[in-house]
């Protein structure tokens, strides 16, 4: 790949997906796009770039998907899901007792493990949420991963990374060498295509937003814009969860970290005028079969 090809791909990916590749990430582009070039019967990445320059829309989409699809696994990092199960959901059970409805957004759902982990956490709440309307919206840029997500079928390797064996037995059905999430869990999640660079106000507001391990790929200005939009999509007492390597500090004052809850953020009352901090209860141990 020539430096000119790499520069073109960096600009193209920034415009199409917000992906902000530093000048030293050539190896990453090569490792992800070379298999794509071979699949398209092209001798190498320069030919792939030429096709995109000449307006091959399908290939352009494939390049964006190849570069933005990231490996994930069930209950990734564990702690955010412990918070969801032990504090966030019990807090919302109290706060939303009158309306009995909850909206949760998995903002970069990749191959579906995150929204389905959320769905299993909700399911584990059992009677506490019986009769509630629970909406779990999962969005991703890639149509390909959304299709995989909707099917809810995972390999033996995928179901062993982070998923407790009891949950595998309880929520999955073995299909040959693969494992499929049961229909009731799949039905809890709505998958939609969405580019976080574009307006997402049509999604409405959410009680909980998981936006983990995606903003790290954006530059500071783009992150700031997305945080502003996320703030508008967050209920006054809602919670934003970021990835372990992500933070709002130095980027936006729309959110502030929740004390002693690493990775959890709430609206900044000084900024939004909407925030109702303090709804986060002390940790409650909910009977859960984990």
């Amino acid at each position, binding site marked *: 790949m020539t430096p000119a090809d790499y520069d073109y791909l960096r600009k193209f990916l920034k415009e199409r997906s917000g992906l902000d590749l530093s000048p030293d990430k050539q190896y990453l582009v090569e490792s992800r796009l070379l298999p794509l070039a071979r699949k398209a019967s092209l001798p190498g990445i320069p030919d792939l770039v030429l096709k995109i320059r000449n307006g091959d829309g399908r290939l352009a989409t494939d390049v964006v998907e190849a570069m933005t699809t990231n490996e994930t*696994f069930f209950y990734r990092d*564990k702690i955010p899901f412990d918070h969801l199960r032990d504090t966030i959901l019990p807090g919302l059970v109290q706060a939303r007792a009158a309306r009995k409805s909850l909206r949760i957004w998995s903002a970069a759902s990749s191959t579906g493990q995150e929204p389905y982990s959320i769905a299993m956490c909700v399911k584990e709440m059992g009677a506490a949420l019986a009769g509630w309307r629970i909406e779990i919206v999962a969005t991703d840029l890639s149509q390909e991963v959304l299709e995989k997500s909707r099917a809810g079928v995972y390999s*033996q390797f995928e179901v*062993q990374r*982070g998923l*407790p*064996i*009891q949950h595998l*037995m309880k929520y999955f059905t*073995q299909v040959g060498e693969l494992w499929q999430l049961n229909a009731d869990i799949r039905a809890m999640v709505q998958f939609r295509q969405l580019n976080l660079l574009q307006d997402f106000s049509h999604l409405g507001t959410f009680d909980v937003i998981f936006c983990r391990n995606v903003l790290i790929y954006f530059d500071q200005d783009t992150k700031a814009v997305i945080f502003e939009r996320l703030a508008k999509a967050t209920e006054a007492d809602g919670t934003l969860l970021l990835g372990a390597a992500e933070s709002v500090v130095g980027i936006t004052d729309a959110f502030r970290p929740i004390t002693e809850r690493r990775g959890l953020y709430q609206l900044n009352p000084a900024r939004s005028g909407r925030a109702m901090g303090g709804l986060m209860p002390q940790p409650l141990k909910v009977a859960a079969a984990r």
Partner: protein
Amino acid sequence: MRTCLVVDDSSVIRKVARRILEGLDFQILEAEDGEKALEACKRGLPDAVLLDWNMPVMDGYEFLGHLRRMPGGDQPKVVFCTTENDVAHIARALHAGANEYIMKPFDKDIVTAKFQEVGLI
């Protein structure tokens, strides 16, 4: 340092498991069948057992039954690690007192995730 007893009749699997678990700061003991594993447990209970199912002399399922009946035998975390990858075997293992279950083939990420799940890491 925590101890893990790796029980498998394949020396290759024991070697791979040892390398992964030593990387996770475990001191490793090895046994090539359930009977030898039981003898090792009588000398001293490990913190964890990584346990194959099909082995000569005494299989992993029978070993688990003996272990759980030993004084203090409910303490070690037992993670099955086997090619018996069907629901019926997993259900039997859990019913017999296994804490987690790894379906072979496995890699470092899977072992790490399962050991985290049972609180060993």
